[in-house]
């Protein structure tokens, strides 16, 4: 037990909840510390420091379920909170599927170091943080005389939690994260003030890119948008840059949840072991990636995470099954959420992919839009670059793409070799053929 006082409080809350009449309970107790800095026009724009706590209870009593959270951890306050939480649960309708997970689903081994906690975190002093933000801003401003405004940012955080279940689970986790980067807005004649950002996020402070690289990349991205305009509607090849590709893949992941299936809100219902995407698409959920943003041994229900291939060469291999909806569907729970989402990466870089396109659009970000997990319909706004004969011709904006997730992923024709490192979804640049674009 690494954090005794927290574990003791969680244990007490568990016992008190049972004493109040609950049959089973899961207690999570967490605390976090965050510091955020913004730097603009050579001075501090904002400094924010905070420490916070949270306790949450999942209560199961006579097959009835409710969930409650509070940040007021004074014992007297907690007592009333727990008493009322248990009392109110009794008004609900009994539901035979409401129980804690079967203990056999809890992780057996949690000893491996996932490298998600930087032991140097405590040694970082506030002036160091300010210096990074200041250096990013300076690097950004030095990059161009077309900058209207740039704001550099640095933040770091430490998060600890303990989870205790009355049927025998005890899990702890501890992590750090560090983010730094900038946003830049640049001049573009009379036609607007294009802006973009570049932020890197890492688990270890030493892994942050240099302030110069961060500032320069933000400005480079904003400048690239100068002169943006829409082009004719039509079907074009689309390359989606790695950092934006998660938006598309989420259209497949979200309807894989057991809740979507059970509630008949999934266009993937009945598609297990069927081909739903092109051979190029293999999606792997890997909870044990070192330094991964979603690396963990157990999920929010205490269920052991596992390495799993979700889509294998275009074939749907798994649904994401949580405890409750798994029971409702009669399926064995396997953890209802994805962790670090990886792909079977290809061998071409983004530049090489672009070189291979005669006429197409490189999408650098999505703006607005939505997708319908029941039917697969989607439509998103896009910002990017027009590609002709393998080169970027001009910036494009104010266009939409549309389609349906049932067929769209069959149009995937290439996966890049460039997993995006600053997210738990390590997407590569993706190329799709014949995508419906609307513009002029």
């Amino acid at each position, binding site marked *: 037990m690494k954090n005794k006082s927290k574990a003791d409080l969680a244990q007490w809350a568990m016992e008190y909840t049972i004493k109040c009449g609950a049959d089973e309970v899961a207690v999570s107790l967490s605390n976090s510390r965050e510091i*955020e800095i913004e730097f603009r026009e050579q*001075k*501090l*724009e*904002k*400094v*924010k420091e*905070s420490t*916070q706590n949270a306790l949450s209870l999942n209560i199961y009593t006579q097959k009835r*379920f*409710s969930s*409650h*959270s*509070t*940040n007021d951890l004074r014992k007297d306050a907690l007592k009333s909170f727990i008493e009322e*939480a248990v009392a*109110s*649960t009794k*008004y*609900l*309708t009994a*539901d035979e599927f409401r129980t804690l997970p079967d203990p056999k689903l809890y992780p057996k081994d949690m000893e491996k170091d996932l490298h998600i906690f930087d032991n140097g975190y405590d040694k970082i002093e*506030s002036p160091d943080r300010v210096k990074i933000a200041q250096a990013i801003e300076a690097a950004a401003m030095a990059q161009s005389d077309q900058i*209207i405004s740039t704001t550099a*940012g640095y*933040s770091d*955080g430490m998060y600890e939690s303990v989870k205790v279940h009355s049927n025998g689970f005890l899990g702890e986790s501890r992590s750090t994260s560090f*983010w730094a*980067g900038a*946003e830049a*807005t640049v001049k573009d004649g009379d036609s607007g*003030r294009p802006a973009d950002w570049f932020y890197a*996020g890492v688990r270890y402070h030493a892994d942050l890119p240099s302030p110069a690289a961060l500032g320069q990349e933000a400005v480079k991205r904003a400048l690239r948008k100068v002169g*943006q305009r829409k082009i004719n*509607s*039509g*079907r074009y090849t689309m390359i989606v840059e790695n950092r934006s590709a998660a938006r598309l893949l989420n259209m497949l992941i979200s309807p894989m949840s057991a809740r979507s299936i059970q*509630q008949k*809100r999934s266009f993937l219902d009945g598609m297990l072991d069927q081909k739903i995407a092109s051979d190029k698409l293999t999606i792997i959920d890997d909870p044990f990636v070192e330094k991964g943003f979603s690396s963990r041994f157990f999920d929010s229900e205490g269920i052991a995470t596992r390495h799993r291939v979700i889509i294998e060469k275009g074939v749907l291999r798994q649904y994401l099954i949580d405890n409750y909806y798994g029971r*409702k569907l009669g399926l064995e729970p396997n953890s209802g959420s994805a962790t670090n989402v990886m792909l079977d990466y290809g061998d071409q870089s983004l530049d090489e992919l672009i070189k291979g396109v005669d006429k197409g659009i490189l999408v650098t970000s999505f*703006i*607005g*839009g*939505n997708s*319908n997990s*029941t*039917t697969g*319909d989607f*439509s*998103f*706004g896009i910002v990017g670059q027009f590609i002709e004969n393998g080169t970027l011709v001009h910036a494009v*904006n*104010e*266009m*939409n793409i*549309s389609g349906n997730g049932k067929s769209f992923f069959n149009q995937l024709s290439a996966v890049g070799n460039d997993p995006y490192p600053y997210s738990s979804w390590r997407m590569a640049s993706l190329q799709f053929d014949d995508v*419906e*674009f*609307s513009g*002029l």
Partner: protein
Amino acid sequence: MSHPISRREFIRKGSKGMIATALIPYFFKADPIHAFTIAGDGAQNLQHYYNHFGVDEKLIRQVMDEALSRGGDYCDLYFEHKVSQHIGLEDNDVNRAYSNVDFGVGIRVLKGDQTGYSFTEEITPKAMKQAARTAANIANGSANVTPQELKLREHPNYYPIKTPWEMVKIDAKIPYLQTINSRVFELDPRVIKCNVYFSNGTAMILIATSEGVVTFDYKPMGQLGVSCTAEQNGQREQNGFNLSGRRGIEFFTPENVERIATESVTRTVALFDAVKPEAGEMEVVLSAGSSGILLHEAIGHGMEADFNRKQVSIFSDKINKPVAEKFVTIVDDGTNPNIRGSINVDDEGNPTQKTYLVNNGILESYLHDRISSQYYNVAPTGSGRRQSFRHVPMPRMRNTYMLPGPHTRDEIIKSVKNGLLAEDFTNGQVAIGAGDFTFYVKSGYLIQNGELTKPVKDVNIIGNGPQVLKDIVMVANDFEMTEGGWTCGKNGQSVPVSMGLPTVKVSKITVGGVNS
């Protein structure tokens, strides 16, 4: 953790992600009625808020002394106690309840336009002074401002309700969900799934500033909604409807309950016949009501003065210039009775108001918080809002709407040769600098030669803010405010908002669709 994605400006509908409960919150138990009746003797009520948070003027001013000890020129304290409750019906049973309790104080110190911020979840003298010293460090000199004696600033109540949520037990709410569920299945045999949810919350806030303002507010919120899925010949469609506002349970009358059930079913089964429009630019008619999302994205965010102070908004150089036809007047208003985005007082202690963004076609005023109103040397517009005591206030919208115009809905629809009528929306987003904005049309109709023809669904619309304002060519006289549960996100902070519009015609805008 601040993540770059969360900095984007967006709006979304519905209660997804809302945490809530089934309790009579213990901390309101002592004296709920007193907290609730903010009308009456102001001083006595202020004392009640002091007692509730366990503070008094002396302690507040001691904390302010610490906050200003490094040379800050202003500070404020924002005490908040909020309880949210949520119950849900799924597969015919009310089988889930959630609650959340949030308690703390945020301490902000300003030095010019620089901000130091800290908060604590323990409202004790020691914890508050410690947080104050942290926030104080935005400045690096010695104290030169003394906190003023606190004087109560009173304000009208724009959201009177009959029954405070603290007095409504879970068993009183359950029948609403069961009634709606039964009606939804009765209304159409094609319905196969129905989810009903009831969310409510109450926040008590107390704000004190070093300039001597002290004020408080009691903020109720209620939401009742349905999502349903229907099936026809193997095809499934899903849609929903909800009503939300700064309301008490009395708002959910039998008529409103029936409306929620009927609308959700009608809107779902209508999608069976829906098609995708042709891709590209076309005339778009926006139905009265939630089409106000156009204003929220096309102009509202761009008029938030923090963006203009930094010169990063496409509207930064357009104040006092014509931006639209003379019949276009757009306001952002915190005073609409019981509407979701209304506020009695903003989160910096300033009175709310009705602010004219565009007045008869001329761009008139930004939405200000303290920092921007000082920067522009104008009076605050009561637009400084924050998600909670954990967050710094920023200029935000409240209820954003367009006043009625000279045309009629019939005239507008008849005038369209080939276009789209947009009726129901789920979300939108804007790029402040470039002015690109989008909104997602869940359902609508094609218009051909002045007649509504086929229904359409799942279409994103994208345009440019200033261009679309110019392209508003007709405005009808049938104004409606939307009553759905809209939430606006900006820099990682969410606040409830609403919006409204009369039927409006935009001469051309890009519609996501298919290419023939």
